[in-house]
């Protein structure tokens, strides 16, 4: 929370809360609940000294369902129990149990409460949001006029919402309006839709409507600009290692075995990610691997066994560590692969298999497409100024060495160019340059092809003309498979620029499959 915002907030909240600025008593009617400005301090204090009413016996089930979220659960119960004046905002990183805590708390408080829930992530547009909320309000009790016509504008929505709500409130019910995944709204319409949502409290002016926002963004993202009443905040911090362990252990069939597994695997993985969902995704296949040597999954491991199991799982753990870092998807991928080739000693085979895969191309591509891809890669990688040095009428391969022995100064200059290119990432190139390189490459490799593959005599005749002919078709194939990206421009003009998106590994694989000496043409420092 930034310091600069605090004073403004103070004035506003004091202005709104001034009529009922009385000492806090939890059992007092909702309106009289004051909201002093440094809310965070208050919450901390409240968490430290739990309110009298929320007896531990009542909440045991709730707290049990929310491991590691005791303080937040208490806050929620305290803030929600008497329908509060101010809206509530739950914020904290992804997968910290915000929605779960909220839903459990609400269920715990009033099993039959009126809950209108809108997860903005599952609503593709503001219109869908309005429709969803209004239909939730109207479907069960009565049908308002809004049922027939869906509001398009936020102001219409607010009016319709007020109509719907007043009807329900007049029956003495408290309505909870929950907006989950609030961060999604920011991508709608440049945030223009956000304002009325956040100001609903001011706009509706209905005391029996409780607004709850759930967001993974920080509150600063929402309330710095609105000029409306600020809600109560409940912060959900990331879980600690122990909490994560508790959560993962929750309801496991063989806790002894699993805890011995977690003691090995959790710490290193926790360094990579702290999100429970990611961790559980990575740990699940690892645990299956861990159990592999065990015949009986119910067994309680002793020390010797633990050590053996650890040795078994360690190489996988190392792999998983690296993969979690990028995408924790490969682990399960291998899982699938291994199911196919089940059996003992699959570890070695798996690693060997991965190496095997990396050395050859996994998919089919026609030879000319391969050459085109290589030339695109070269065009993106090499600076254009070096093209003449690398490729010339003789094909470049022998000339290349002579050029490299040029003076120190020019070499330095080239080096800086190359360095610049590397820093900028793959460069763009016009079609003509691509075609020129393509022609150079194919004309050289023609001889190579003859030596290595010795194709039938008539095949080589048609090759030269053939390879060039449908290059443009191949180009579109490459663009479609995301190997090249193309900048949009007038098709007549023909000045579209391309960029190759492939990494060196793939380029080398492709080169190897056509026996093309790619490294000769790649300019390195």
């Amino acid at each position, binding site marked *: 929370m930034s310091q600069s915002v605090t004073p403004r907030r103070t004035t506003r909240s004091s202005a709104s809360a001034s009529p009922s600025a009385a000492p806090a008593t939890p059992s007092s009617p909702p309106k009289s609940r004051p909201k002093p400005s440094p809310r965070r301090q208050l919450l901390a204090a409240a968490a430290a000294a739990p309110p009298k009413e929320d007896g531990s016996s009542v909440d045991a089930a709730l707290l049990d369902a929310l491991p590691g979220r005791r303080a937040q659960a208490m806050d929620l119960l305290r803030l929600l129990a008497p329908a509060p004046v101010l809206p509530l905002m739950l914020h904290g990183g992804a997968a910290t149990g915000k929605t779960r805590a909220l839903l459990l708390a609400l269920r715990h408080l009033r099993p039959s409460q009126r809950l209108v829930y809108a997860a903005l992530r599952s609503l593709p547009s503001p219109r869908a949001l309005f429709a969803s909320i209004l239909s*939730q309000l109207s479907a069960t009790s009565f049908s308002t006029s809004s049922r027939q016509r869906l509001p398009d504008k936020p102001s219409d929505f607010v009016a319709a919402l007020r109509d719907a709500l007043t009807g329900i409130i007049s029956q003495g019910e408290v309505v909870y309006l929950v907006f989950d995944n609030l961060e999604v709204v920011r991508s709608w319409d440049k945030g223009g839709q956000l304002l009325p949502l956040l100001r609903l409290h001011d706009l509706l002016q209905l005391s029996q409507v409780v607004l709850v926002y759930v967001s993974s963004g920080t509150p600063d993202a929402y309330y710095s600009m609105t000029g409306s009443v600020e809600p109560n905040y409940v912060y959900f911090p990331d879980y600690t290692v122990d909490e994560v362990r508790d959560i993962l252990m929750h309801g496991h069939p063989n806790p002894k075995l699993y805890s011995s597994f977690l003691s090995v695997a959790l710490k290193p993985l926790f360094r990579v990610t702290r999100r429970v969902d990611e961790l559980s*995704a990575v740990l699940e296949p690892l645990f299956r691997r861990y159990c592999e040597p065990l015949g009986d999954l119910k067994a309680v491991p002793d020390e010797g066994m633990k050590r053996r199991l650890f040795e078994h799982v360690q190489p996988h753990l190392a792999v998983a560590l690296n993969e979690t870092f990028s995408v924790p998807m490969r682990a*399960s991928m291998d899982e699938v692969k291994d199911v196919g080739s089940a059996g003992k000693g699959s570890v070695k085979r798996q690693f060997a298999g991965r190496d095997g895969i990396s050395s050859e191309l*996994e998919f*089919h591509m026609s030879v000319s497409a391969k050459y085109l891809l290589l030339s695109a890669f070269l065009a993106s990688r090499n600076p254009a100024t070096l093209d003449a040095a690398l490729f010339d009428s003789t094909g470049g391969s022998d000339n290349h060495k002579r050029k490299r022995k040029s003076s120190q100064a020019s070499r330095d200059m080239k080096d800086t160019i190359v360095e610049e290119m590397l820093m900028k990432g793959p460069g763009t190139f016009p079609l003509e340059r691509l075609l020129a390189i393509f022609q150079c490459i194919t004309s050289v490799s023609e001889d190579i092809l003859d030596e290595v593959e010795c194709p039938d005599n008539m095949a080589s005749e048609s090759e030269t003309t053939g390879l060039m002919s449908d290059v443009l078709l191949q180009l579109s194939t490459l663009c479609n498979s995301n190997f090249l990206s193309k900048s949009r421009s007038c098709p007549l003009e023909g000045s579209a620029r391309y960029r190759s998106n492939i990494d060196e590994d793939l380029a080398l694989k492709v080169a190897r499959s056509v026996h093309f000496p790619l490294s000769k043409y790649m300019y390195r420092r």
Partner: protein
Amino acid sequence: MAAPSEAPLTAATNIEPFYVLHKGTASSSSSASSLPSSGRARRRIDISGPASLNPKSGKRSRNEAADDDGDGDEELYDRLRLEAFHRIWSKIQSTINEVLRGISLKLFDQVLQWVQESFSAVRSIARPCTDEVRQPYPLLTDVICRKIPTAFVLTKNAEFVDDITTFRDLAEHLESNGCHLAKLSATELSEKHGVGGCFRSLLRQLLSEVPDVADIFALASWYSSAENYDQPIVVIIDDLEQCSGDVLGELVMMLSEWVIKIPIFFVMGIATTLDAPRKLLSSETLQRLEPCKLTLGSPSDRMNALVEAILVKPCDGFCISHEVAVFLRNYFFKHDGTITSFISALKLACSKHFSVEPLSFLCMGMLEEDCENFWRDKFDALPQSLWKYASGLPSCTREKDSIKSGDNMVEGLSELMKIQKDWSSVLLCLYEAGKHGKVQLLDIFCEAVNPDLHTQKTPNLPNGKSGTSRRFIDQAMDTIRYLPVETLFHLLEVWSIHLKGMDKISDKVKELQSTTISTDSVRITKDKWTRRSINSTGNSTVALNDKVAMLLDDVTRKFLVSVECLPFHEIICFKNVSILQSALIGNPRRMVQLDLLKPHKHLKCSCCRKNGIAVSASMHDTSIMCNLAQEYGDVINLHDWYLSFDGIINSTHSKVKRKPHTSPSKKKSKPIAAESEAMIQARFCRAVTELQITGLLRMPSKRRPDLVQRIAFGP
């Protein structure tokens, strides 16, 4: 298998317009020589007609035959050929569909199994009642991360065309097995439509009527109804690479929140590698997917199966020559790499064959049960011209001194069929052996149809020379020498299946099989007794391997006779590779340029021919410009170009003027010249634009406004 033949491959059907039934070169020449066909022959046709043709066409031919003689015959044979084409191609097409379907069916079953497993896995977490499904807020379960089961289907071909049909069939397969199915294409998953549009099209495919606001609640309430509840929803995205990552990511996030209530699974087709989803989607999104990898048969596997079914297995009545085979192979491996284009090339070849080869209608006989009778009927009915043509076929004149009687022809064709059959059995044996050495069938096939194969190997040239023409066959033989006993035994078993009907050889194979068994048992007993004997058993297996290899070599020499060496092969064998070449590798820009440079070749006007090569004003403007452009390098100065263009136009103007008016009055010519100045500029501009549109040059850049760039070079 009615469905696949009704809905053949999309691309393959599109070449229908190519099929223009030209009058066969030979038959047209024969009509020029116009031998009036005898009445007897015609009556024969009438008799034989209804047996093979449908009665309607037979009747028509009779009516027309009454009108005039030569044309009627010709038309009849044209129609016969067309019918033969339709019959044979539909046979080939259905074979193709069957083969491809058989290959992909394996994958389909895998996918179905995966769907069912995932469905039961999702349901084992929670089985929400209908009210719970409709609730807007998530179900509280113990699941930490809600993941969408996703099958990544690797299609293993950078080119996507082949898989369109695969995914369509997959959708049908899943739907018929009780899944709800929706297909999203890359166009729907684009930035333009956004996640809303994409979700709407998803709903449109599932719900009977889509509500005004397409949101997930509509889907939930639809799914919660009793008749929909017990099946999973499968969403097929067939080309993942082309989708917009953001939109797909949003969709995944949205659906993953609901996956326990509404079990939606993804099947995503990936053309390249598994890196594609990683590059496309954010890690947040990837985490919501529970991936599973499935692979489709690689294109070369499919190709092998296709070649085996269409080209190697006999009795389809159509085959291709060595040149064509090599061309097709190169086209497949070097250029296009799709089965679709291979099939369309084959169809093109087939249609060309039937349109060009006058006797090709006889191919139909190969499909008849009693082919000899069929042929005899046809031969007796042949008009003189075709008769002459048949006996003049180069393959007949080469082989035998004279073939006059129809019987001989029938015999020749039957012989051809028989030899073809043996040839294909031996080729399959070779392929079976080569499989262990990763030899592709298409490669062996190309060598086996080589007519030089037979002539080359008899003189037994040194290895280096003979290796070029039969590299893959030798490779296949070599693999036999190193096969372990078990595989060898298995190989012999497969051979005996392939060689059924060739008694002598299958006897030999049986003999070898028995020795395999004996050596096998010997080895086992010996192994039991002493360790030393490994050496000797090694020897015995080597001897056996050699024996098998020798047998194969022997058989290959005897039976692997290329079609092109046989008499009458022209009737069934398509040889004209240049037609195919020009049709498939169009090279349009070059053709446009060539045509522009030599317009009189097409226009055949009198004015230009007189002038010969020189550029004249009577030519089309664009043509003149194109000719002029040849004089420049890669950039053309616009002003110079214009001046020379102006010069050419005006030179003839003045010439034309000068000729009628021997004394040109300056007064008269001036205004015309001034008027044509603007006109010439306009014509110049139009010509330049046309050249730009045809892709021969590029407009001037801002930096050098007076120069245009040439793009196409060379004549």
